[in-house]
Structure formats: C-alpha cells, structure tokens
C-alpha cells in the first residue's frame, strides 16, 4: 500500500458510511413493510423458510407482496413469475437512469449493484449524484445504501415471521401505509419546476385510470405517460426560451438529439 492509497481508502469508507446513513429514513419506512411481509407469508401459503429465502434471494418488496397475493388466490407458478417480471419493469427505467454513472465500473461491481437496485437505494443514490459532480467513488455510497437496505429487509422478514405467529391479526394494522408515506417523502423534493409537476400529476391520474389493468401493468403505462408529459413540457419551455432570446441556447449539446 502506497501513501496515496490511504486517502482513497478513507474516501471510500466515508462514501460507504454516507450511503448507509442516507438510507436510514428509507429503512424506517421499510421496517413495517418488511415485518408485514413476514407476517403475511404463512397465511398465504409460503413457509417461514420460503419467506426468508425470498427476501434473501429475490429482494423486491412490491413483487414479494404481489407473489403472496397470487399464492393466496391460487395462481400458477408461471403467472407469479411473469407478474414479478412486469412489476419490476420500473427497475429497468432506474437502471437506464444510472447507466452513465456506472459505465466505468467492472462487471464484478455491476452485478451486486443490479441485485441491490431497489426503489429506496435508487432514490438515495440519485439524490447523491445530483449533489456531487465527481461520481468516481460513488459506487461505495451505493454499496452502503444497498447493504443497509438489504440487511434490514432480511431482518424484518425474520421478525415478521416470528411476530405473525404471536399476533395473527397484525396483517390488518395498516403497516403497508409506511411504504406510501415513504414514497411521498421521496417525491416531494423533486417538485421544483412545472415539468416535474406535470409528470407527477399525469402519472398519478393515469395510475388511477389504469388501476384495473391486470398484473399492475397500469403502473408502467402511468409512469410512461407522466414521463412523456414532463419531457414535452421541458422541451416546450426550452423552445420558448430559445425564441425569446433569438438565439439557440445550446447547453452541453442537449438540443442535438431532440
């Protein structure tokens, strides 16, 4: 180890800790949700061991809940797996968003990062990328966030399995509201300009309108409509600014691909 390695190692450690710390509020929101998953498993027909294995290996909150619902409804295994795929399609949008930030990393980093790509870690990490220009060591921040989220999810599942045996009526306490309130807290800071408001309003309205679609497909339809609304308004605003100043406002070459 040379003397220059020390500051780098220290920087990485700091990023890791910062990542775990930034994820604490999201963990508070995920605790009731994880416990609820554990309590629901056995009444849905998934063994205690199966519930733990699912949290350890699949690590996808919303899909795990939907799988329980489908198990209760007696759905066939291919249906559950296909539904998991559809419900997780939003993660492909997250991955697309992160692609420019992870391009410099080797596959041995990308694989665990992909495994840990949850709503919460994505929110924590994209917030960090917004604040910090130099993103070369931010994969340590990502790792800290992912491991904090992951260990909490597995622990809460175990806790839920145990509590579910003690208090069978826990499933009716409304613990699922914790996820809604966490996501509200995550969305509000984005609402700083008209295109963002448009994206959120259109997406929300479309989600209600398409709520009857099977396999939560409405979620993707709504998100894409919201993104389209936000993007259109963003491009219109830009065009308006350009004509006002009578000169093309080419910033970072952003207009070239539109």
């Amino acid at each position, binding site marked *: 180890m040379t003397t220059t390695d020390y500051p780098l190692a220290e920087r990485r450690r700091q990023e890791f800790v910062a990542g775990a710390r930034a994820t604490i509020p999201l963990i*508070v929101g995920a605790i009731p949700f994880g416990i609820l998953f554990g309590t629901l498993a056995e009444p849905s027909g998934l063994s205690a061991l199966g519930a733990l294995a699912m949290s350890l290996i699949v690590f996808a909150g919303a899909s795990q809940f939907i799988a329980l619902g489908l198990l209760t409804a007696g759905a066939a295994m291919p249906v*559950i797996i296909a539904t998991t795929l559809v419900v997780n399609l939003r993660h492909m949008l997250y*991955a697309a968003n992160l692609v420019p930030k992870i391009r410099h990393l080797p596959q041995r980093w990308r694989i665990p990062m992909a495994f840990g790509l949850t709503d919460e870690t994505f929110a924590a990490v994209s917030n960090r990328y917004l604040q910090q220009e130099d993103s070369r060591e931010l994969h340590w921040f990502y790792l800290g966030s992912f491991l904090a989220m992951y260990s909490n999810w597995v622990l809460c599942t175990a806790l839920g399995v145990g509590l579910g045996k003690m208090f069978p009526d826990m499933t009716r306490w409304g613990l699922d509201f914790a*996820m809604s309130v966490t996501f509200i807290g995550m969305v509000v800071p984005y609402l700083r300009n008209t295109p963002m408001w448009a994206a959120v309003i259109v997406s929300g309205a479309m989600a*209600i309108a398409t709520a009857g679609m099977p396999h939560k497909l409405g979620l993707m339809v709504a998100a894409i409509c919201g993104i389209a609304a936000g993007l259109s308004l963003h491009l219109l605003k830009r065009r308006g600014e350009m004509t006002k100043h009578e000169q093309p406002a080419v910033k970072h070459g952003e207009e070239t691909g539109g």
Partner: protein
Amino acid sequence: MNEVTLIFGMFLATFSVRYLLFAVAGRVHFPPWLNTALGFVPPAVLTAIVLPAVLMPNGELWPSLANPWLLAALVAAAVALVRRDLLTTILVGMATFMLLRFGFGL
C-alpha cells in the same frame, strides 16, 4: 407448489430486469432527450405506486377526507413540502395514519 422453483424463478425475473442495462452499459449511449426523460423516472414511478394506494385503499375510488389513507397522505405531503426532511415526513405520516385509523376508528 415447489418453493425453490418459485423463488429461483422470481429471482431470475427480478435480477434480469435490473441487470440487463448495467451489463451493456459500456456499449450503450442514450440520446440527450432520453437522458432528460429518464430524469422524470423516480417521481413518475413513485407517484404511480402511491396514488392508487391512498385513493383506492380497498380497490375502489374513495376521494374523501374520511379516507384515513388519503388524509394521512395529504398531511405527509404538507410536512414534506414545509420541512423537506424524509424521516419527519415518514414519522408524522405514520403517526397521523395510526391516530386516524385506531384513535378515531376511521
């Protein structure tokens, strides 16, 4: 049902979706408009998850202040707008929900 197969299948369905773009990240470059569009992803997706959950908690549209999910969500959004602190938002939102649901029996 074979739980091992189920969990392995769900793992493949989840991981492949998350990994696909990461795997080829060195070779794909998005046009600028797509990068702008992807910036709208987090709020659009999260809103599409939350709004049906609080407006249709029992599967049917319930746009009333007697709906504890909706009322607590509005309180949480107000707290988030004023304080911009996630932990406060979550704690106040959950406390409001529990109070409405079990304190007032809504």
